[in-house]
């Protein structure tokens, strides 16, 4: 078509400019010469000939200009010209440009880095074919329905009065699957199930290790349309009981532990003592479909889950119909909708669910059961895998986004001020342009081009900063900080780069538009008449921007201060035991197949060796690790209470006899446990002070008997009282805690946390410990090894992250604001040289001049502090507001601090002082320059 032709021609004109320009010159010159020659031939003199020729030709320059414009793409030419001009302007003041670009780079870089986190955690879809067509199946029923047993996490929101789950029982899934495959016109092409198998014992080489895995239905990989990079995937054949036991490895495991050896296919691999055949390896980047952060290293068919879990199997056994533990996903056929799926499968599901669940409690009237209360299916998009945990990361990430956005805004404010100052200087130039006819928008466009140029340069360098920053970010964060889940890779992919470009352009327009607008608002007559220097008065807009910058920096720094104090407070909390020189590790013999009497024997043997390790002054263990976010609680009844009474709650702990001595927990009254407190002796317990005060405030607690309400129905006599300790978190208040001796309940000692008090550095002992355990049983992995203090410290990861990041960004914001303040004041002083000269000539002292300038700046800083105080107050009221749902991210944010209020006076005073001092420095430097003004020079100089 013709428009394409024209476009191509114009493009050609754009690229071949010089040659075509020369051609045009040649052509016109030739024409003129021929015209002149004709005239000469007609008898004119050369001058007359030339004169007439030019007249006949018409305006040569006009023709050339028209030709030029038509020849090429005008907008592109204009843009190129503007860019060249912009570059020139920037090069003129390299220092200022450098500072501007640097501040932009820091702001944009921080945003980019954080967006890569958003992308990796919240946006990354499963690396399978057409993830948009995957659906996560969930179900909902009235509260009257109860599931017989549940295993796994399910964080689904539903309307009040109902419960929603994303977990299915195997028989229910089977029936659903049968219904789906029986209908060829079903809107679902594949229906598959999967579930996590956390903490499997894997025998890798001669070491035993703990890995996470997942169990999947036979058509899992088919439904996902995922092809392995080596070997083959699990099929429905493998999912039949009795077929060869197979396992698929993850890319990560294959790389790390098998050296990416292509010959692993067919090798045997031991998981939980079961020998499995490796049949394939999944591609890189595939981390299963479960919660983000849970990366299964192995995938096995559902049918062998009972082999791996033994009595703990979640599938149906002889004793129980199984539990609700499977996640279910389906793949939609092209064009199918959720509604169609609901219509097609809800019936089958409801029938299956009603069969599987016990009928509602007798107390509820069947007539009152609305149809919405019957179990029915609901769906969520499956392109990200299971979504639940992602949402909890969202709150931290969005909180940080607010912070980096603020920093970027501060940088923009700096640049806006810079451009405003420059615009005033360029007034005469601009007015001349307007006078000869340049359109206002044309000028604005040119000025905006400069801003966009700055912004894009800043963005490009920002990407570089983000690239470096993301490794720092990954190093700073781990599972504990709630920002980045494990195994998530941050990459600067095209989505992130597009984001950076968009932010850069937006930033450029943001800080560039108003100065450009201002600069082109001209009253020509006055501007051209008055002298080229402005009055040096700082515009209201500039002042406003500075105030905003100071306010934002103050807020960020106060936040940083609060978190630093929180961290400090948390680290200072008395734990109730001595965490120094304590090596801790975990053993889980039950997973390795130990039965109760075997456990007792094993621990005896182990302690015989541990007790005699050199440099170990005490070896003990407990069921629950302290200050590790773990807990174990039971309900119980006090003496004399009947079976129907409301049960009381206490935290539980199970320990070795020397526990209190080794952990240095003060023992108060009664007697400690002894090795004679075993199965043949009466059941005893020791309680802490909080327990005593809460349940036996006015009586003697020693000798009382209490009865647990769980399945064991154990009854214990309290024989001792011990001091309180922190239990699961440093920041929690003391809770009632009840200890029992380890030998008296072999069913609960399948997993124990050991603690060794050492005389010197505990870390060196770790390898000895591993050796000792391996001597006794080479199939038993030693996990969670570390020093107690380090592990306790690690639980403060989130607070530490906030403190670090807020400090970094707060200081960054302060530096930017200080630079901005300095810039504006320096400019103002340089413009007011004449005025200062006059003042000094009239007798003003140097000190007065200095005070003048400093006060000009400090006025704004103080105003900024006031504004930040106001904003802080509003925020405080907002966070304390009762409207927030419990567990919402606002509530979570409000509960982050410890031991310090949001309005903590010490923090506020320190930050205000810091800001004032920095601001004073920023004002002092231009003030000094003002003081150096020589009145004679100033008055003469125009």
């Amino acid at each position, binding site marked *: 078509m013709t428009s394409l032709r024209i476009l191509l021609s114009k493009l050609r004109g754009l690229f071949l400019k010089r040659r075509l320009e020369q051609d045009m010159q040649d*052509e*016109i010159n*030739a024409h003129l010469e021929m*015209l002149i020659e004709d005239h000469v031939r007609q008898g004119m003199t050369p001058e007359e000939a030339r004169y007439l020729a030019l007249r*006949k*030709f018409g*305006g040569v320059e006009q023709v050339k200009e*028209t030709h030029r414009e038509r020849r090429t793409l005008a907008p592109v030419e204009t843009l190129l010209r503007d860019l060249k001009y912009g570059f020139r302007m920037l090069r003129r003041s390299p220092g200022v440009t450098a500072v501007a670009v640097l501040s932009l780079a820091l702001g944009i870089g921080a945003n980019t880095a954080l967006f890569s986190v958003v992308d990796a955690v919240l946006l990354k879809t499963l690396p399978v074919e057409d993830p948009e067509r995957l659906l996560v199946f969930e179900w909902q029923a009235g509260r009257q329905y109860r599931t017989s047993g549940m295993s796994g996490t399910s964080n689904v929101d539903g309307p009040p009065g109902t419960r929603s789950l994303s977990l299915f029982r195997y028989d229910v899934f089977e029936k659903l699957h049968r219904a789906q495959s029986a209908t060829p016109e079903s809107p679902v092409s594949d229906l598959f199930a999967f579930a996590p198998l956390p903490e499997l014992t894997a025998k890798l080489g001669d070491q035993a290790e703990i890995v996470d895995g997942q169990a999947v239905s036979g058509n899992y990989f088919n439904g996902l349309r995922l092809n392995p990079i080596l070997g083959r995937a699990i099929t429905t054949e493998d999912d039949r009981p009795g077929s060869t036991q197979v396992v698929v490895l993850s890319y990560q495991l294959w790389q790390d532990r098998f050296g990416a050896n292509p010959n692993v296919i067919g090798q045997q691999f031991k998981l939980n003592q079961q020998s499995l055949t490796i049949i394939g390896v999944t591609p890189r980047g595939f981390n299963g479909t479960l919660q983000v952060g849970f990366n299964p290293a192995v995938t096995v068919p559902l049918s062998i889950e009972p082999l791996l879990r033994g009595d703990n199997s979640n599938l149906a056994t002889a004793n129980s119909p199984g539990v609700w533990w499977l996640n279910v996903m389906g793949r939609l056929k092209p064009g199918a909708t959720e509604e169609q799926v609901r219509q097609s499968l809800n019936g089958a599901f409801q029938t299956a669910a009603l069969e599987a669940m016990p009928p509602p409690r007798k107390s509820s009237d069947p007539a009152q059961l609305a149809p919405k209360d019957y179990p029915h299916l609901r769906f969520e998009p499956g392109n990200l895998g299971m979504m639940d945990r992602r949402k909890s990361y969202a709150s931290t990430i969005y909180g940080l986004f607010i912070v980096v956005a603020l920093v970027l805004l501060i940088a923009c404010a700096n640049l806006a001020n810079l451009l405003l100052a420059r615009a005033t200087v360029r007034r005469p130039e601009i007015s001349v342009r307007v006078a000869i006819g340049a359109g206002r928008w044309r000028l604005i466009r040119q000025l905006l081009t400069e801003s966009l140029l700055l912004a894009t340069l800043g963005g490009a360098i920002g990407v570089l900063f983000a690239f470096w920053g993301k490794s720092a970010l990954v190093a700073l964060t781990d599972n504990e900080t709630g920002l980045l889940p494990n195994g998530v890779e941050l990459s600067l992919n095209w989505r992130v780069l597009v984001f950076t470009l968009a932010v850069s352009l937006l930033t450029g327009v943001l800080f560039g538009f108003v100065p450009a607008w201002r600069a082109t608002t001209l009253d020509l007559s006055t501007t051209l008449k008055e002298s080229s220097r402005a009055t040096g008065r700082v515009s209201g807009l500039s002042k406003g921007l500075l105030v905003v910058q100071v306010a934002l920096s103050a807020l960020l720094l106060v936040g940083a201060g609060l978190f630093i104090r929180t961290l400090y407070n948390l680290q200072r909390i008395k734990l109730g035991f001595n965490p120094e020189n304590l090596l801790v590790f975990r053993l889980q013999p039950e997973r390795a197949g130990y039965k109760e009497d075997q456990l007792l024997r094993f621990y005896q043997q182990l302690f015989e060796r541990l007790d005699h390790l050199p440099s170990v002054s005490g070896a003990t263990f407990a069921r629950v690790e302290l200050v590790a976010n773990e807990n174990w609680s039971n309900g119980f009844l006090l003496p004399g209470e009947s079976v129907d009474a409301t049960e009381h709650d206490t935290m539980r702990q199970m320990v070795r006899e020397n526990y209190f001595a080794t952990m240095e927990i003060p023992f108060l009254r009664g007697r400690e446990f002894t090795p004679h407190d075993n199965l043949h002796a009466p059941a005893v317990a020791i309680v802490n002070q909080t327990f005593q005060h809460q349940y036996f405030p006015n009586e003697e607690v020693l000798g009382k008997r209490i009865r647990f309400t769980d399945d064991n129905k154990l009854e214990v006599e309290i024989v001792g009282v011990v001091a309180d300790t922190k239990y699961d978190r440093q920041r929690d208040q003391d809770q009632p805690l009840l200890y029992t001796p380890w030998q008296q309940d072999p069913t609960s000692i399948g997993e124990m946390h050991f603690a060794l008090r050492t005389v010197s550095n505990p870390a060196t002992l770790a390898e000895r410990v591993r050796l000792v355990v391996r001597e006794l049983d080479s199939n038993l992995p030693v996990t969670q090894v570390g020093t107690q203090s380090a592990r306790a410290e690690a639980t403060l990861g989130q607070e530490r992250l906030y403190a670090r990041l807020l400090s970094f960004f707060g200081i960054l914001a302060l530096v930017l604001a200080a630079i901005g303040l300095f810039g504006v004041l320096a400019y103002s002083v340089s413009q007011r040289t004449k005025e200062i000269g006059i003042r000094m000539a009239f007798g003003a002292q140097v000190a007065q001049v200095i005070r003048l300038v400093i006060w000009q700046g400090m006025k704004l800083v103080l105003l900024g502090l006031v504004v930040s105080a106001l904003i802080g107050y509003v925020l405080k009221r907002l966070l304390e507001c009762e409207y927030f749902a419990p567990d919402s991210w606002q509530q979570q944010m409000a509960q982050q601090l410890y031991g310090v209020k949001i309005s903590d006076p010490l923090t506020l005073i320190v930050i205000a002082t810091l800001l004032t001092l920095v601001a004073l420095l920023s004002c002092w430097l231009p003030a000094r320059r003002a003081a150096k003004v020589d009145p004679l020079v100033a008055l003469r100089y125009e």
Partner: protein
Amino acid sequence: MADTKHVVLPGTLNLLILKTLASLGELHGYGIARRIEQVSDDLLELNQGTVYPALLKLEQMGWIRTRWSTSENNRRAKYYSLTRAGRKQLTVEEDAWRRTSAIVTRFLTPSEK
């Protein structure tokens, strides 16, 4: 008859150029301008330079093609000729012009009855 000169109406320049090239075959820019002046008996006041932007447009539309060669006075000059599409366009423009002038003529003629 030769008192007043008429300015070339915008848009008709294309038609004149195409017709010139159709009649005379290949010409350079000066030749076209001279020819237009001649044919109109010097009645058309033409700024000769204006042919060049017009020629550029015609070339962009694909109606004429160009070729560098040597002119009669041994200068390097660009020669223009009609393409097949150009010939078709000429017919189109001629018809359009005749129709327009016919309508305007009818408008100006006093109506009978």
